[in-house]
């Protein structure tokens, strides 16, 4: 089970990122839990400055803008 956190104040792109990660996980059959982190202090604690950010098992893999779906698949497969 991968633990995925989407970092972002809840803007449109953060929601889109969460949806994209979920649908890629479903497609690949990878079990995940997705958690949205909206608290600014917590977001900054991960060391990113641009949102949305993606954290997989406590490792930041992406910051700023929608990730590419191939990249999401790569992170999930890793």
């Amino acid at each position, binding site marked *: 089970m991968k633990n995925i956190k989407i970092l972002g*104040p809840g803007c449109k792109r953060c929601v889109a990122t969460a949806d994209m990660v979920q649908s890629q996980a479903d497609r690949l059959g990878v079990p995940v839990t997705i958690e949205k982190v909206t608290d600014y*202090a917590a977001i*900054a604690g991960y*060391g990113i400055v641009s949102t949305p950010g993606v954290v997989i098992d406590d*490792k930041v893999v992406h*910051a*700023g803008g929608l990730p590419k779906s191939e990249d999401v698949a790569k992170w999930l497969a890793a």
Partner: protein
Amino acid sequence: MTTETLTAPPHAAPGSARLIGATIVGLIAWFAVYWQLEPFSKWAVAQLPIAPGSHLEEAASFFIFDTPKVLMLLALVVFAMGMVRSFFSPERTRSFLAGKREGVGNVAAASLGIFTPFCSCSAVPLFVGFVSAGVPLGVTFSFLIASPMINEVALGLLLALVGWKVALTYLVFGLLVSIVAGWTIGRLHLEHWLEQWVLDVRSGSTDLPREHLTIADRIQAGIEAVRDIFGRVWVWIIVGIAAGAFIHGYVPAEMLAGIMGENHWWSVPAAVLVGIPIYSNAAGIIPVVEALLGKGAALGTALAFMMAVTALSAPEMIILRKVLTARLIAVFIGVVAAGIIAVGFLFNALFT
């Protein structure tokens, strides 16, 4: 998970060559269409049942010519800058700025503000991320002022619609305002006017996997940028052009020159005061500036108006209220507005 799997080497997919080819064809088509715009818009206006020479005709031809022109120019500029911006990221900008001395740091922050991709919904994480990583407060402000005010959209459209001299002066004086205003705020030592929780944040460190981008990836980034920016700003542009068209067709030149011309000392501060609460991005405001200049508004007054609209806005202040106390926001607005007014006066004095 190794870094290898994350950053798989640049895939020389057969798609890259096709993408590069398609981009070149697209650029040629762009220029072919662009050169035909003026004759086409004249023809289109002539087809409308409007009396030639009337106010309505002038407004309509401004609108019909400017809309496709601005949209096409914007697409080209945003595409090119999307590719350039793929070399920059806010994270990299921050690690470059952390620990920089004030002064040098302000100059670097304002310059990086031009290139670093930044959207206003990221303003708070960006602010907190910068400050908690040890970027001085004044340097952070230099970035925050420069980023929305001087960007590819503003410069590209000014260059195309109003000319390179105005674009260059806007660039130079925009940088100057960002640097001096940020430096001033830094000198005032207002760190204790930040919201308390911001001071308590200890920024974690990340090393994002380094991305290896191919040319095809950067073209892709350019296309993404066009799609993204268009999705967000096209409404503003149409509204801006419509406002410009109205000014162009209906507002008497004498009236505008009377209010925004060079004869009144108060026209610059008045333009700035009106501009502060208005929210529009650069793409929406430039057609208005173009029309104002055409009606005899003084250059300094028009540019001061544009800077006030882009650099300061009510929605941005509401977002920033989460990290700044009301007092600090007041200082921020005051310092930036004073800088913009000074630029407006200087301009009107220099170019009369």
